[in-house]
C-alpha cells in the first residue's frame, strides 16, 4: 500500500513566569509536593482566579514569533471535565476566542530543505495538578501554559523533529519557557492518520500522548504509522482514540476514555473579564521580539567571519550566542573565540551535564583567554587547563597561567635544542620522512612538545622542525 502519514501537533509549553497563571504561587520545578499551592490553585471553594499579566505577555510574544494574528478580543473559557488532577472540576482554558490565530512557521530539515507548517491557534490555559502514587501534588496546578496547535502539515518524523527543534529554539530565544521535555515544560501530543495516496482525505486519526523526548516522538510516529497501516492493509478500521506512548516497552496503548470525554461543556469563564488588546500593545510587543537563531546565524557569519557550521552550533542556544558575541567583540580574534565556544565549551557542558545558564564563564574572561592564545602567550593545550579553571568559577586568566607556569615557551634556542634532541633520538623516522612519508612530521611535533612540557609554541616548533628537516638530505 502506498501511504503517507498525516501528522498534526499539539504542543503544551509551560511558561517560565515567576508566579502561576491565576494566583501568586511560585512557578518552579521539583521540590517537596504541595509546597507551592494556595486556596486559589487548590480550588478551595470561594476563591477566584486573577490573571497574571506576564502570562498574557508571554503568550502574545509566542504568537508574534510564529507569525500568528493576535486577536484584539480574547477571553477565557471553562473546560469542564472531572479528573482527580483537576482541583476545580474544570480547567481555565481558551476555546471560542483564543489569543492567537493563524500563522506559519518556516523551518529547515537536516538536509537543508526548507519547509513550512501552519499554526491553527495558540491559546492560554492552566496546567493541572500531578497525580502520583502518594497522592496529588498541587505544585503544578495553575502553572501557565500555552498550547500551540499546528495544522496536519507533517508527513514524516524527520519533519516533525525539525519543526519541534525550531519551535523550541524560538521559545528559548523569547526566554518564555525552559522547554525541558523531561521535566514536562515542553509536551508534545501527536495526531496521526494515514492517507492512502489514491485517496483525497486522510483516514481516522489517533492522538498520542506522553512523549517525553524527541526520540520518543520519532519512535511513536514510526510505530503508530505502522500500526495504522497494518490495520488498513488487513481491511480493518482505525479507531479514533487517545493512545499513551509507553517509552519502556516502546509501544502505544489505548488510554481509557469515557463515553462523553469529548463534551467539555465550554462556556465563558465568568470570573475573568475578557481581554481587549490595543494595536499599540501588540506593536510594542512586536518591537520587543529578539533576533532568532536563523537570522542571528547569518549575521554572526557576516559580522565575525566565522564558519556557518560554527555559527549554527553557537546559535543553537541563546545564552551561548550572547556569550560568544560579547566575547568576540572584546577579543582580537572572533575565530579564536568561536573555536573555544564550539569546542571546549560544548565539551565541558556535556561532561559536566550543565545547561548554558549554569555556566560561570563571563564573556570578558573568555576574551582574555582567546587573546592569550592569539598572542602566543599560551598554547591551546595549556589553555585547555585554564579553561577548565574558568568553568569552575575562576576568573584570573593571566594569574592562573603565571602560577601554574603554563606560559608558552617561545625561546628559539631552547626549541632548536629540543628539535635537535628529538631528531637525533629517532634516526629511522627521520629516514622515513626523507623517503617521502611526510605525515610523520606530526610525530616530531608531539615529541618536541613533550620535551618542552607541553608549553612550546607550536608555530615556532613547526618552523624549527621544517628548517632542520629541510637541511637533512
Amino acid at each position, binding site marked *: 500500500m502506498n501511504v503517507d502519514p498525516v501528522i498534526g501537533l499539539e504542543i503544551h509549553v509551560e511558561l517560565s*513566569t515567576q508566579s502561576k497563571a491565576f494566583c*501568586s*504561587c511560585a512557578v518552579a520545578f521539583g521540590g517537596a509536593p504541595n509546597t*507551592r499551592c494556595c486556596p486559589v490553585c487548590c480550588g478551595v*471553594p*470561594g*476563591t477566584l482566579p486573577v490573571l497574571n499579566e506576564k502570562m498574557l505577555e508571554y503568550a502574545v510574544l509566542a504568537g508574534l514569533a510564529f507569525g500568528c494574528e493576535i486577536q484584539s478580543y480574547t477571553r477565557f473559557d471553562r473546560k469542564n471535565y472531572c479528573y482527580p488532577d483537576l482541583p476545580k472540576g474544570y480547567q481555565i482554558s481558551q476555546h471560542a476566542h483564543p489569543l492567537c490565530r493563524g500563522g506559519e512557521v518556516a523551518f529547515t530539515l537536516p538536509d537543508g530543505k526548507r519547509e513550512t507548517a501552519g499554526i491553527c491557534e495558540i491559546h492560554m490555559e492552566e496546567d493541572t495538578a500531578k497525580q502520583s502514587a502518594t497522592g496529588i501534588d498541587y505544585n503544578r496546578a495553575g502553572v501557565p501554559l500555552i498550547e500551540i496547535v499546528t495544522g496536519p502539515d507533517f508527513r514524516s518524523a524527520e519533519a516533525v523533529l525539525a519543526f519541534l527543534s525550531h519551535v523550541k529554539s524560538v521559545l528559548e530565544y523569547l526566554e518564555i519557557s525552559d522547554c525541558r521535555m523531561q521535566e514536562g515544560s515542553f509536551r508534545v501530543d501527536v495526531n496521526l492518520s494515514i492517507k492512502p495516496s489514491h485517496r483525497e482525505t486522510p483516514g481516522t486519526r489517533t492522538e498520542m500522548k506522553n512523549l517525553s523526548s524527541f526520540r520518543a516522538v520519532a519512535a511513536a510516529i514510526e510505530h503508530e504509522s505502522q500500526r495504522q497501516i497494518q490495520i488498513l492493509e488487513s481491511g480493518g478500521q482505525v479507531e479514533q482514540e487517545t493512545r499513551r506512548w509507553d517509552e519502556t516497552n516502546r509501544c502505544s496503548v489505548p488510554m481509557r476514555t469515557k463515553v462523553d470525554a469529548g463534551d467539555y*461543556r465550554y462556556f465563558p469563564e465568568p470570573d475573568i473579564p475578557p481581554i481587549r488588546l490595543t494595536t499599540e500593545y501588540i506593536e510594542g510587543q512586536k518591537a520587543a521580539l529578539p533576533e532568532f537563531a536563523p537570522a542571528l546565524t547569518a549575521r554572526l557569519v557576516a559580522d565575525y567571519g566565522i564558519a556557518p557550521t560554527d555559527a549554527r552550533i553557537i546559535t543553537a542556544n541563546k545564552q551561548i550566542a550572547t556569550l560568544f558575541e560579547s566575547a568576540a567583540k572584546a577579543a582580537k580574534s572572533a575565530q579564536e573565540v568561536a573555536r573555544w565556544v564550539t569546542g571546549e565549551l560544548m565539551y565541558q557542558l556535556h561532561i559536566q551535564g550543565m545547561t548554558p545558564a549554569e555556566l560561570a564563564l563571563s564573556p570578558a574572561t573568555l576574551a582574555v583567554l582567546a587573546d592569550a592564545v592569539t598572542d602566543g602567550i599560551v598554547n591551546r593545550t595549556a589553555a585547555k587547563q585554564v579553561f577548565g579553571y574558568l568553568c569552575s568559577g575562576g576568573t584570573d586568566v593571566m594569574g592562573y597561567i603565571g602560577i601554574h607556569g603554563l606560559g608558552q615557551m617561545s625561546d628559539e634556542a631552547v626549541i632548536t635544542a629540543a628539535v635537535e634532541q628529538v631528531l637525533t633520538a629517532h634516526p629511522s623516522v627521520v629516514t622515513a620522512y626523507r623517503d617521502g612519508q611526510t605525515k610523520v612530521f606530526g610525530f616530531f611535533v608531539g615529541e618536541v612538545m613533550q620535551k618542552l612540557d607541553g608549553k612550546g609554541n607550536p608555530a615556532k616548533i613547526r618552523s624549527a622542525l621544517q628548517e632542520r628537516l629541510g637541511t637533512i638530505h
Partner: protein
Amino acid sequence: MKITQACIEQIAERATLWLSERQKPLMAKRLSEILERLAVIQGVDTLGIQLEHQAGSPENIMRPDTAVPTMAQAPPSKNTPAAKPRSITLTGLTALQIGAKIQAGIFSAVDVAAAVWDGIAEQDRDINAFISHPARKTFLAEAAEIQEQINRGELTSPLAGVPIGIKDNICTTGVATTCASQAMAGFVPPYDATVAERLKKAGMLAAGKLNMDELAMGSTSETSYFGPVRNPWAVDRVPGGSSGGSAAAVAAGLVCCTLGSDTGGSIRQPASHCGVTGFKPSYGTVSRHGLIAYASSLDQIGPLAHDAADCAAIMDVLAGQDAKDSTTLELPSATYLAHLTGDIQGMRIALPEEGLGGGVNEDVVASIRQAAETFRTLGATVEYIRLPCLDYAIPAYYILSTAEASSNLARIDRCRNFGDEVVKRILLGTFVLSAEQHERYYQKARRVRAQISRQFEQVFQAYDAVLMPTSQGTAPLLGAGEDNSLHNYLADMFTVPANLAGLPALTVPAGFDRGGLPIGAQIVGGRLMDGTVLNLGHAFQSVTEYHKKRPVKEASVSER
C-alpha cells in the same frame, strides 16, 4: 421536551453526579417540566443582539507577576478578657444608631455583643436563622478588643462594634462554612472572604453564620440541611430565600444587620417576606472573593438591615475594587451614605404595568401603587411603562444560573448527598451546556440576557429608577411547594432582571397584606447608580413607618 430516565442517567454521568433510585424518575419528571417552561425563550427575538461577556464588561485588571510564599498563617488573636457586660436593650435600634451610641460611650461594644449573643441563644430556637455562632467568651473578647481600639481612637467607623450576621456561604477563617449543605460538611475555610475582612477592618463583629437554602439554590430557605428557617412574622411561614436566615435574623431582632447574597433575588425576596430592607448592589461593586459561588456572573453580596441608611453604611464598608476579584470595578470615591440626601425632587420613576397585574397578589399591587403615590408626594414623577422582558427573564436566568452552577459545584465532592433542588439544578445546567443543547439553550439565554440589559438601558435613558414588586405575593406557608417543584417558578420574576443586567436593586418594606404579612417594594436603578437607589429608599423611609414595624414575638401561627 421530554426527558427520559435513561437520559437523566446520561446527564448525571456527564455531571459525575450520583443519583439514588428514588431520584432518577423524580429528576426525569422535574427536568421535563422545567424544560417545557424554558421553551418560551426560543420565541424571544434576539436578532442582531451583541453578546456581552458579563454585565458591565469590566476591564480585566491583571495581577503583576510576583510570587508570594505559600499560605501565610493567620496571627493568633490576642484574646482580650472582656469586662462584665451591662444589660442593655437594642430593640428598635438600627446599626447606625447602635454604632453612634458605642462611639458616644453610651454603650460599650461588649454590652452590645452580650445583648446580641444572649438574644440569639434565647430566641433563635424558634426561627433557626443561625447555623453557627461563636462561643460567648470569644465573641465578647473580640468586642472588648474593638472597644479598646475605639477607646484609643483607632476605630472611628460609624459601625465599629456593631455585630453583623453573615450568610453561611461567605468564608470566614477557621469557621465552618456550610452553605447549609451536607456536601460541605467539614469545610473550614483557611481564609477570610474580602467582605469579612472589610467588616473586621471597620470594627464590625461577626455574630454568626446564617441559615439559607442549600448552596443558595431556592427561594424559601427550606432546603437547608440544618432545617428550614421560619418567618418571624408567622413561624409557620417561610422567610423567603435563599438568604432567609439573613432576613429572618434582622426581622426577629437577633442582629440589626446581616450579609446575604443575591443571584436571582436571594437578598430582596426574603427581605420583602420578612419586612426588612435588602440591597443587591450593581454587579462588580462588592468583591465575590470568598463567596461560595452559585452563578458567578450573577452573584453579588449585599446587606440586609432595617433601613436604607444602614444598607448604605454597610455598603461603604463592603464596596470597592478587590485585587482578588477581577470582576470588581473601580468606583467613585463618594460614599453611599453621602448620597442619602432624602431629596428626590424631579426624579423620574417608571412603573411597569407587568408588576400591577397578572399573577401579582392584589395586596401587593395596592402597596406598590401606594408606594408610587408616596414617591409622587416626595416630588418624583411616576409613569407607567411596559417591561416585556419580565416574561422571559426567568427562563434565561434558570438556564444561565444552572449552567454556571453545574461548573461551580464541580469542586465540591459529588459522592456526597446533595438535596433534590441542588441535584435538579446541576442536571439542568449540565444539560443546557451539553454540546447538543448548547446553542438552543445556553447561547440563546445569553442572547436573551443581552437583550434584557438593552431593554433596561433604554428604560434608564428616560428614567432614574423602576418601581415594582419584589415578589408576586407574601411569605408562603412552610411546605407549600413540596408537591410542586414549579410552585416557586415565577417567585423570582421581578428580581432576576436586576441580576441578569447587573443593576442595583433595593427592597424596602412597603406595607402588609390582609394577613399582616410584610410586602416589599423594589427599586431598581441604572448601572452603578447604587447611590440613587439607596437615596430613593431612604427618602421613602423618611415618610413611611413600615420599616419600623416589628413582628410580635408571641405570634406563632398565622390566621390565613
